[in-house]
């Protein structure tokens, strides 16, 4: 019930976000991640707009409270495909490897998502990708949403893990109040 | 006296380009990019002691040149000076060469033979360059001031055994259109020289070598030599240094 809500809202409101098929089948119970979990947009009391450019975010940091639910509206004003992924620095390191593989396999290009390939390639261990894991891909000129209930961790960042973008500085910080 | 003349010829061959270079002060002279660079070098292909059954001698084959991509002025000198004996051979050429194709130059000039006596002056016309397989070839036709026609063809190859050790086979053939009895030269192929030198390039400019050189007078030239009581062939061990500056 809860899971299907997430999927439905993602599909309805965020047509350009990739929702792995596995999300529906391979995430029973949908355990919260150490830094929180995706929740329906209706639970959010606050909306934060994140603008993506090539290759940075505006704003560069967002202040949140532990337990708070924030609805993020992510707008890609750049000319490249970008990601908005929540995670600790070590999560981003892992995520970068996966993203590099996705690029090698042609599932994503510099500017777009190849949905066909995305669907086909789900054996490749792309589970940790999608709104339920705190990650959305936004194509140039498009917008997407992600609603997140925060759990406090020592360091929490939002980052784009498309090869090269993280290095160029496409990373922002969550500051816990 | 004759010895002095030939040494002077050899010295001249060194001095001429040097003075030209001193005047120009730099090796590759060019005020801005792309202008004709005037370049000079002195190169000794052979500068060696020869040891054979007939004794020892010092032999040289040295040339100096100055020029550009399109032309060169060359002064060549070669000869042999037996230990303790009179000068056996001494020859100098001054030629102007010009580029005729990617790999070939044509040249024309003068040759003067001081020894063997009697002296001769020649007009020289030739081609030099690189044949396929990296074979360096030099072919010259000569007309003496007495109207005698002769030719010389030389070919050599550098076989790199390692980056520094180089084996160089060489062949030289002399031909004559007529008998020149007074100089001991017979019509047809007059003589052949085969050489094999192994050099070690300490620097590209400085490479000591050892080798063998085999010379053989042929046909009528050989019989002239026998008539004079000379041998018609000689196998020599050689040791010398190839250099360039």
């Amino acid at each position: 019930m809860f899971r299907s809500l997430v999927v439905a809202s993602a599909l309805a409101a965020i047509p350009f976000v990739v929702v792995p098929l596995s999300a529906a089948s391979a995430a029973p119970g949908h355990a919260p991640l150490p830094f929180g979990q995706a929740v329906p947009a209706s639970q959010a009391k606050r909306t934060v707009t994140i603008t993506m450019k090539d290759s940075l975010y505006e704003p560069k940091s967002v202040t949140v409270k532990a337990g708070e639910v924030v609805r993020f509206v992510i707008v890609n004003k750049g000319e490249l495909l970008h990601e908005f992924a929540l995670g600790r620095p070590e999560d981003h390191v892992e995520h970068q490897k996966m993203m590099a593989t996705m690029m090698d396999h042609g599932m994503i290009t510099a500017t777009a998502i190849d949905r066909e390939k995305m669907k086909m390639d789900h054996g490749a261990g792309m589970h940790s990708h999608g709104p339920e894991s705190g990650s959305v891909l936004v194509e140039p000129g498009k917008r997407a949403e992600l609603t997140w209930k925060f759990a406090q961790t020592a360091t929490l960042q939002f980052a784009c893990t498309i090869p090269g973008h993280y290095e160029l500085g496409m990373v922002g910080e969550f500051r816990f109040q | 006296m004759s010895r002095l003349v030939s040494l002077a010829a050899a010295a001249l061959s060194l001095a001429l380009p040097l003075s030209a270079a001193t005047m120009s002060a730099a090796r590759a002279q060019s005020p801005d990019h792309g202008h004709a660079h005037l370049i000079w070098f002195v190169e000794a292909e052979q500068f060696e002691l020869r040891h054979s059954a007939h004794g020892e001698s010092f032999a040289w084959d040295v040339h100096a040149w100055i020029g550009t991509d399109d032309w060169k002025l060359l002064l060549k000198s070669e000869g042999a000076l037996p230990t303790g004996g009179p000068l056996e051979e001494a020859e100098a050429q001054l030629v102007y060469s010009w580029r005729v194709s990617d790999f070939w130059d044509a040249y024309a000039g003068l040759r003067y033979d001081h020894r063997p006596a009697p002296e001769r002056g020649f007009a020289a016309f030739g081609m030099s360059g690189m044949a396929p397989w990296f074979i360096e070839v030099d072919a010259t036709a000569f007309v003496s001031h007495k109207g005698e026609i002769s030719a010389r063809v030389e070919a050599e190859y550098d076989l790199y055994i390692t980056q520094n050790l180089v084996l160089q086979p060489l062949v030289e053939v002399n031909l004559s259109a007529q008998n020149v009895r007074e100089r001991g030269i017979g019509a047809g192929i007059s003589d052949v020289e085969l050489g094999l030198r192994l050099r070690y390039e300490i620097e590209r400019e400085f490479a000591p070598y050892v080798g063998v050189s085999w010379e053989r007078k042929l046909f009528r030239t050989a019989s002239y030599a026998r008539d004079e009581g000379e041998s018609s062939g000689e196998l020599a061990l050689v040791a010398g240094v190839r250099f360039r500056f």
Partner: protein
Amino acid sequence: MDTILNRRTALKLAAGAAGAAGIYAVYPGRRAFAAASEYNLAVEKGRITVDGISSRAKMMGGSVPAPTLRWREGEEVVIYATNRMDEPTSIHWHGLLLVGVMDGAPGFNGYVAIQPGETYTYRFRLRQSGTYWYHSHSAMQEQMGMYGAIVIAPKNGEKAAADRDYVVVLSDHTREDPRRVFANLKADPGYYNRGKRTLMDFFRDTKRDGLDATLKDRQDWAEMRMDPTDLADVTGYAFLVNGKGPEDNWTALFAPGERVRLRIVNASAMSFFDVRIPGLPMTIMAADGQDVQPVRVDEFRFGVGETYDVMVMPREDRAYTFFAEPIDRSGYARATLAPRAGMAGEIPALRPRTVLTMADMGMAHGGMDHGGMDHSSMGHGAPADAGKADHSTMDHSKMGHDKMDHSKMGHDKMDHSKMGHGGMQQGGMQHAMPASPSKSSTPPDRAVGWGDAGTRPGEKALAYADLRSARKNDDARAPTQEIEVRLNGIMERYMWNINGRPFGHDEAIRVKYGERVRIRYVNTTMMAHPMHLHGMFVELENGQGERMPRKHVTIVPPGQEVSVILTADEPGEWPFHCHLLYHMEAGMMTRFVVGPKEERKAEAK
């Protein structure tokens, strides 16, 4: 660390601050209260010390490399260049868009060399941002140390957030007088080649490839009187990073996790490099000063005159080695990225020196469009048997054949009989194999073909095809004419030219102002030529559509064709040449004349 010269320092120095006099030669009193953005650069003879060995140098601003000029887009700069040598000199601003006479190439655009004792005043407004460089454009001076970097900050701020920003100037330095180098090349073009094919190589190749194949291969080269080991023309170089030798170990500091931007300039006279930082992928963010969409690579091939801006993010608390191998592998340039001064990373072994193939002679592939192919990540997997051309071991599914334009490959033109497959030659065959995820730690023991850097399987080398402009090309018009630029050489004589005519006897290339033209380079030689057009950027036709990268230097690999498109929007008489300095010196240069604006207007009426 980096000799930085920004406006404030310059002013301070001009006002008479003495401490930095050794770095920056200033002649106070001339313009003690200069307006903003005025600089003094003295050109003088001096000495540099590389790994403890001192040699003669010519320098600008008192150092090798010359001080980095840090400017801002939109500002006007004034540079007083004073010649304190006893020969004419010049300073050229490589990659900058400016009025012809400010370009600094003697004999072009009305610019006259700066005579001894004279001061020339350069004045221009900066119409661009990015990493560029400056160097002498007078014969035999640049290679003695007259080169330095220019960093122009974008007027709207940097797009990428770097925690550290370093200039890395690569160069090659020899103690030999450049005139002597040139004379040696003229007298014996193989003078510096210490990688010639030897009898020992013959035995080795015979053992590996068989006698017939080896003989055949030797025959092919011998008949052409060409040497497949000729990669670099000149050796004996020390390879420098910011003027420092490998032992000097120039070091850039970082804190783990920081973003470090390296602005890398190839200011060599003759050396192409393969540049990498083992263990640290680089994100290419700009090429020739122009922003590109980020590409993550493990290494890149670096042509003379090019610049690349890369971002790296060292995470570990250890030293990383910045390693640049010249393609003839005759040494290396090395620097260190380290969390603390005095550290040194592991120095990798030099990878194998490649041997050219018939494909590099243009013999194998008639009109093949290499521009769109990914040579870099060819991943020469089975090294020992590569020569046997055992295609069965190649993973065709990963080769990305779909990216190859077979129609352009001109297979019908391939003369297989001449290719000596036994002895060679996957160099021309293994294209477009994308980086496969399989990691092998065994480096290939042999490299075949000019494009083969010996990249490890699974690692990614930058290909020109990967460069994609960050912004769309301004001019979408189709070119109205194609200009063929044949790059010719006679190696045996060390003669090089464009379209058969050496500079001085050349015929200028003429285009109208505003015209859009295609320049098609045809390299008939067996050396790569980094072709540099002054005054304008060209767009490299590398298959990136409306995002062709903008370049001021274009590498044209041996035996290949590369095309670029130019909007001729800078009137003038621009130098157009190979940036290998001894090739330029030997005549590989011509004039590229863009007609005046008025002419165009008159025509429109």
